[in-house]
């Protein structure tokens, strides 16, 4: 391992990494293990197809369709599978509902498990040490880092994603949105509100 982690101090860490990544892709391509065009397609899918807009549609649907909400809380993967317009979802997606009594937030203390299909690739902070270390011990302190305050009489429930189950928070519907369409409501649903480190936008607030 030592020779692999040798650092050439004539180069910056970034350029060394960049070079090594390029070499590895060359080797894998020459050996016939990967097809660069397939790698391009994977990257393009993560950049364009998957993202929090998928989760936002699910949340907005749950806010407007009580039967769907019941099904979603019962079996997230199955319920989302019935929505043709949302990207495909893997098994064991568990949807957890925020209520005035309980605020949910999701973490992966061991690595970076996250509902990719619903939210896209996780942000850097979700994968970094400050969040992973503190979310389970001091969740209100972590929420304060996001400028979020949850009433002291509300239970904070932290879900540590330690297996191949994935968790999506169903935030509370903002007040003042009576009669709004699913499309309008989806605009209020933020990524962080589905992780549990934020709330949906309020009607009329700048986006």
């Amino acid at each position: 391992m030592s020779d692999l982690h040798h650092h050439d101090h004539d180069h910056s860490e970034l350029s060394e990494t960049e070079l090594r990544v390029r070499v590895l892709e060359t080797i894998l391509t020459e050996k016939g293990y990967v097809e660069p065009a397939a790698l391009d397609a994977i990257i393009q899918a993560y950049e364009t197809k998957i993202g929090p807009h998928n989760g936002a549609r699910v949340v907005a649907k749950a806010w407007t369709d009580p039967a769907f909400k019941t099904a979603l809380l019962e079996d997230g993967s199955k319920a989302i599978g019935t929505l043709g317009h949302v990207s495909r979802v893997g098994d064991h997606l568990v949807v957890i509902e925020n209520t005035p009594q309980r605020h949910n937030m999701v973490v992966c203390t061991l690595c970076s498990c996250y509902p990719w299909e619903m939210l896209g690739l996780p942000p850097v902070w979700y994968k970094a040490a400050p969040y992973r270390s503190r979310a389970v011990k001091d969740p209100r302190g972590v929420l304060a880092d996001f400028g979020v305050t949850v009433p002291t009489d509300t239970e904070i429930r932290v879900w540590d994603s330690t297996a191949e189950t994935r968790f999506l928070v169903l935030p509370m519907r903002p007040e003042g949105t009576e009669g709004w369409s699913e499309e309008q409501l989806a605009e209020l649903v933020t990524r962080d509100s589905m992780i549990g480190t934020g709330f949906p936008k309020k009607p009329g607030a700048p986006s």
Partner: protein
Amino acid sequence: MNGVHDMGGMDGFGKVEPEPNEPTFHAGWEARVLAMVRAMGAAGAFNIDTSRFYRETLPPHVYLSSSYYQKWFLGLEEMLLAKGYIAKEDVAAGHAVQPAKPLKHGKLGVGDVERTMVRGKFARPALAPAKFKIGDRVRARNIHPATHTRLPRYVRGHVGVVELNHGCHVFPDSAAMELGENPQWLYTVVFEGRDLWGADGDPTSKISIDAFEPYLDPA
């Protein structure tokens, strides 16, 4: 393994710093690393648990000082070397100079990319009845394997309550070591914040993990 990756409850890492309007990738190479990991995994070069184990076994100072995708890259390269898909001679030459090794599922083509965008299936038929039912009190075992495990240190020895039963799943502790899938019952187990952290815990907090049956004893 009791590595630095098992971060739950550690102090001193500072504030969480969200980045407004964060891009999907911060550099082109990050995207290439992600795509190579996905493509080689789909080709059957390794399973997800093995790939996690290789990141965990990076030396602690490397793990803590590397960015997320640097860890992915270092883990990938180590794993492909260890499994004989690439050789040190290839890396030194910057080209493939050693022969290739067959891939279990074959090279991932452009037409197969769509299926890699959905997570794999980890549920398996049960080999025995579940030992625990919802509402049971269980104690997380005080185990410290030097190999891969998904039982975080901060719950070991503590008592929680079974809240959900997810069925039988591939057991990461076995799969990571390539000892077979060894399916086990998987439960969501919830702990009181004060039970985990004592007086330093938040009395209004509850923390759950997803625990495989071999991680638990009746309490």
